[in-house]
């Protein structure tokens, strides 16, 4: 108990220092930050998020994408997701959950060295489909997997 408290204290102090440093512009956020698609991540509706991410193109359902996630997630704060695909020349993989306050969870930009498999963990507000959108050879494809969420994980 006591050690945990120490760690938390230390972490808080260090975080404080960091905030000051950032304020003083000592730690300039990396230039790549500009590439972060704020519009897509801040969108509250799935359509809007998708449009902001992909332009107006709507993805086509594909059986060459596999979304692996548990059928039932007891804790919506941590839902494991694995997206694999056999489509050629994959440029990016994005993961959406329509019922979340911010439907776009994550987007991965893959180089040609990458194998088309990405695993991660996401939050889910309630029972819904996890939607994966894969950009392959300039075209968009999608697949989904329903997950039953017992306890929502977005707080609020």
């Amino acid at each position, binding site marked *: 108990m006591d050690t945990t408290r120490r760690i938390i204290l230390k972490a808080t102090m260090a975080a404080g220092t960091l905030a000051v440093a950032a304020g003083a512009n000592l730690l300039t956020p990396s230039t790549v930050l500009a590439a972060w698609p704020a519009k897509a991540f801040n969108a509250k509706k799935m359509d809007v998020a998708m449009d902001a991410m992909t332009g107006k193109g709507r993805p086509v359902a594909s059986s060459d994408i596999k979304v692996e996630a548990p059928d039932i997630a007891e804790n919506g704060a941590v839902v494991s997701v694995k997206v694999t695909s056999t489509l050629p020349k994959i440029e990016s993989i994005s993961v959406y959950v329509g019922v979340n306050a911010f439907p776009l969870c994550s987007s991965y930009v893959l180089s040609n060295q*990458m194998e088309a498999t990405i695993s991660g963990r996401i939050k889910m507000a309630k029972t819904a489909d996890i939607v994966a959108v894969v950009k392959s050879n300039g075209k968009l494809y999608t697949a989904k997997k329903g997950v039953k969420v017992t306890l929502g994980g977005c707080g609020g």
Partner: protein
Amino acid sequence: MARKMKIRAWDNGKSTSIKAIIFHPMETGLRKDKKTGKKIPGHYITEVNCEHNGKNILTCLWGPGVSKNPFLAFNFKGAKKGDSVKISWVDNQGGKGGSEAKIS
């Protein structure tokens, strides 16, 4: 740095497997502090860059929908044992961190 992360990188025979965990609160900005009733400001990782020998292999763009202490796993080709894999991240409050691992 107080914030830590773990990376494991190994040769799986066909390609290189990476598993990483970044210790980060990933606060959505929607949760309320139970004592004060005020909203806890959003604090989440926005971008993660993965490099192999200095060359970008994967860029992750994350939003608040990614779980606390995010986990990331992927495979990539074209590396050999002993090569270095570097993962670095930035968050929406200007925080950043990263770590490096040798492929075993």
